[in-house]
């Protein structure tokens, strides 16, 4: 019987009167991979910090590696590996220097040290970058290096706070290769994540929401618990299916999926009401479904989406709202965007995928008129982005990765400000703000400062601000980063509704399952567009049987690398 590496009873933490985490009971056994899953602000980081003994619990007890986190924090700190959510290494030091520093402060000496360091770097694919400054690495590489730094002293327990947040799929895969290796070496891993596939791969999972434990168990147990409550619905008119699901009180949530299907989660004990001209069949629950059940509010919010019922697309000629021809831009010697030609039509959703640093954000900045293309031309909403950038700006909406809002203003003040900044006439302000709020399903943002809103609400507010002037084109740069799955699905429905209104949409994302919501995908690498087309077409090009986004993504990238290898 494996001994308990972590043993927590009634663990909780409060800041003043506000409780951020309470009643956590958990046991993690040696060699286990333990996942902590939950949306922004669920208390995941708080829990991990307490396990690493760098945050004092305000309730309950916790033994880590046989030491009490309260009585012997130094003992715990010296034995665990802890990786915080942000980047925790020194950006001005090189890869090798960072690794040496991590070893030094943990008293790792002797001849093994160099061997181990070299081995870890090789495994992380960083051995070629030993002398590069940490700050000049991509996000994925920085995360891998931070993991290596935490493995130098061979800790029996690794505590990782969202290690794969904002990391592209390729780096994510390498990160997990290192972790799998650590696991085979007998290390215990406790990590937080918002990726459901990662949760699925755990030995045990704790679901958190608003600081309270929702469920604890092995993924297969949790999935089994909701078996029979998940349906796949297919039919010719998905809009009509969704409208029917909207009115069914037994339905907790539903999401439109790629491949012309809708997935619905139904309350325990209730059955899906039959829908005209549709086939509903029970589906095998995934961790996403589990999370949806666990985090669903007791009464389904009626009218949330019905405020903006998707209208059937008008049967008219769809004009191209984005036309770029051979667009390139250089920063010094570095070609950030290299000869990109794309078009986006009215009502079309184009998804841009690619590793970090592939040029997705730069391309969007060019199309927004923020950056002049060095070569090539681009027209957005009928205007040239370089020469008529003012006219372009008045017709586009842009939402950046960071949900750029004013944290000290209220939701309404933010909306009013952006409406006026876009030149919405005073007489129409009220109406436009009401329209944008409804479109973004912002019914309860209230008057409080934006900094106090949840990540998901801030996300929808940023969307409302970006569409308040009724743009013809919408650019969304990683709009769902760090948001929980349920909120992500909800957000995608809003996007789909906007597209149905005829807005042309360009979106980037790291969540592969989201790519399935796009009409067409553009894969970028090293500034170039290496593939463009609907998911099924791209899958066919690679000869894949199923249109799996991740497989398509990795397939094209490998093909590209192989091509480069030959060229070199």
């Amino acid at each position, binding site marked *: 019987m494996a001994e308990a590496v972590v043993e927590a009873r009634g663990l909780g933490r409060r800041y003043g009167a506000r409780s951020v985490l309470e009643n956590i009971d958990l046991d993690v056994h040696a060699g286990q991979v333990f996942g902590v899953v939950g949306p922004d602000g669920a208390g995941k980081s708080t829990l991990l910090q307490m396990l690493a003994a760098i945050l004092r619990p305000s309730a309950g007890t916790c033994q880590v590696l046989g030491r009490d986190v309260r009585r012997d924090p130094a003992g715990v700190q010296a034995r665990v590996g802890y990786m915080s959510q942000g980047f925790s290494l020194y950006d001005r030091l090189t890869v090798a220097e960072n690794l040496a520093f991590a070893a030094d402060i943990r008293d790792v000496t002797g001849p093994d040290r160099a061997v181990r360091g070299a081995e870890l770097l090789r495994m992380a694919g960083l051995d070629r970058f030993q002398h590069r400054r940490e700050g000049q690495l991509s996000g994925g590489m920085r995360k891998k290096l931070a993991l290596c730094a935490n493995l130098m002293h061979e800790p029996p327990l690794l505590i990782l706070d969202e290690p794969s947040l904002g990391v592209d799929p390729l780096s994510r895969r390498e990160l997990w290769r290192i972790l799998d290796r650590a696991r085979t070496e007998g290390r215990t891993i406790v990590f937080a994540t918002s990726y459901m596939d990662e949760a699925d791969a755990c030995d045990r999972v704790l679901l958190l929401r608003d600081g309270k434990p929702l469920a604890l168990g092995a993924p297969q147990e949790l999935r089994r618990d909701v078996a029979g409550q998940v349906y796949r619905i297919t039919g010719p008119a998905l809009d009509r299916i969704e409208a029917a699901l909207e009115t069914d009180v037994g339905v907790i949530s539903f999401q439109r999926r790629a491949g012309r299907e809708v997935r619905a989660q139904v309350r325990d004990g209730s059955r899906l009401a039959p829908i005209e001209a549709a086939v509903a069949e029970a589906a095998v629950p995934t961790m996403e479904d589990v999370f949806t059940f666990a985090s669903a509010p007791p009464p389904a919010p009626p009218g949330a989406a019905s405020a903006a019922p998707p209208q059937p697309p008008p049967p008219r000629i769809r004009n191209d709202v984005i036309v770029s021809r051979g667009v390139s831009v250089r920063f010094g010697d570095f070609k950030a965007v290299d000869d990109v030609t794309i078009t986006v039509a009215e009502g079309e959703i184009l998804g841009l995928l690619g590793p970090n640093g592939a040029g997705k954000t730069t391309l969007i900045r060019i199309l*927004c*008129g*923020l950056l002049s293309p060095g070569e090539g031309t681009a027209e957005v909403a009928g205007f040239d982005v370089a020469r008529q950038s*003012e006219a372009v*700006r*008045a017709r*586009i*909406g*842009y939402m*950046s990765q*960071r949900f*750029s*809002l*004013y*944290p*000290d*203003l209220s939701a309404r*003040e933010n909306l*009013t*400000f*952006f*409406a*006026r*900044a*876009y*030149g*919405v*006439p*005073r007489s129409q302000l009220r109406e436009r703000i009401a329209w944008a709020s409804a479109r973004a399903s912002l019914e309860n943002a209230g008057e409080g*400062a934006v900094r106090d809103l949840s990540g998901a609400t801030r996300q929808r507010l940023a969307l409302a*601000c970006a569409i308040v002037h009724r743009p013809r084109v919408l650019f969304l740069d990683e709009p769902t980063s760090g948001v929980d799955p349920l909120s992500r699905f909800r957000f995608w429905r809003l996007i789909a509704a906007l597209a149905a209104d005829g807005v042309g949409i360009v979106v980037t994302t790291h969540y592969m399952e989201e790519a399935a919501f796009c009409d067409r995908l553009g894969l970028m690498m090293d500034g170039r567009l290496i593939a463009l087309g609907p998911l099924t077409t791209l899958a066919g090009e690679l000869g894949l049987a199923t249109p799996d986004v991740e497989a398509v993504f990795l397939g094209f990238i490998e093909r590209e690398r192989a091509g480069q290898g030959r060229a070199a």
Partner: protein
Amino acid sequence: MLSGRLAGLITKEFAQFLRDPVMLFVVIFLYTAELVMCTMALGFDVQHLKLAVVDHDRSAVSRALIEELTTGDNFVLADQFTSLREAEDRLRRGALDVVVEIPPRMGARLAAGRPASFGVVVDGSNGNVAARARAYVIEQSARFVESRRPAGERRAAVRPEVRVWYNPDLTNTRFMALSMLAQAGLMLGVVLPAAAIVREKQEGTIEQLRVTPIRAHELFIAKITPTLVICTGAVFPALVIMTLMGVPMRGDVLILLGLTVVYLLSAVSLGTFVGAITQTLQQAMLVGFFGLFPLLFLSGSIAPIESMPPWLQTASLASPQRHYVEIVSGLFLKGAGLAELWRQALALGAISGAMFLSAWLVFRRRW
């Protein structure tokens, strides 16, 4: 007519400004507590200097001289020694400021109608204090000679009518208060707009602004408006404090307000420039702070400009604070008007124009 865009921007800036308790605190602190505190503490009234006596004469004359030196506010008799060597030890430790050594038979020489002299040693460690101590000794001994002249020997003399204009009690308080007023305006004028601009960069909201039709100069106008309004408004409480501290207002309040706006414009133009060239709040504060230092030095608040070397005197023309210190001391202390102060106003205008243009040129490249 204000465009809807600009009005929206300005409304937002005011809302953000008024919601930032730290900034509000800094504004109030600078215009009240800091002003009062520095004025009270840094009066620089060099009085009651510690004087020791080595009297080798011990005559009526030497005693009278000592009394003459130590009865006023300038010196207090701290100690008596029998030799200069003893006093020297105390002087080196900094326990004394002045030592007066009266030679033997000084009284006798004077009575015999022969000229005499006495020694004075001043601790030069602090040049300012030493210069004043020296001047006091010279003045008081001249007066002593004058008063000791026997009635019969009275001769025609100059009757000095020495007046100190604008500040008859020779206190540093008034000037200090006015300097602090100018200092507060410059600090806030630079720091607030710079922080407001850089905050947009740091929060990433600048990207969002750039995709709107807002123009660079509209952003500038919106960023400086709250500072201009609030700092101009702060002149009124400052006027009350000035009155309470006994700084007379001899000039026209309307001219003061008008020239204050001109001054603040030059300060916010510097702040806008700092905001344009920096990327993070920390950089902005460092640049702003270390930029403010020379401007303060060259303002004449700490030391008179005419004691600086000529090249620094020329450089001081670039300090808005120099011109404003001249404006407020002219208005408050001397009762000057536009006829005397238009040059300063013109200089401030030139500084504003140059800085706004530079800021706009820098900013536009990345807008």
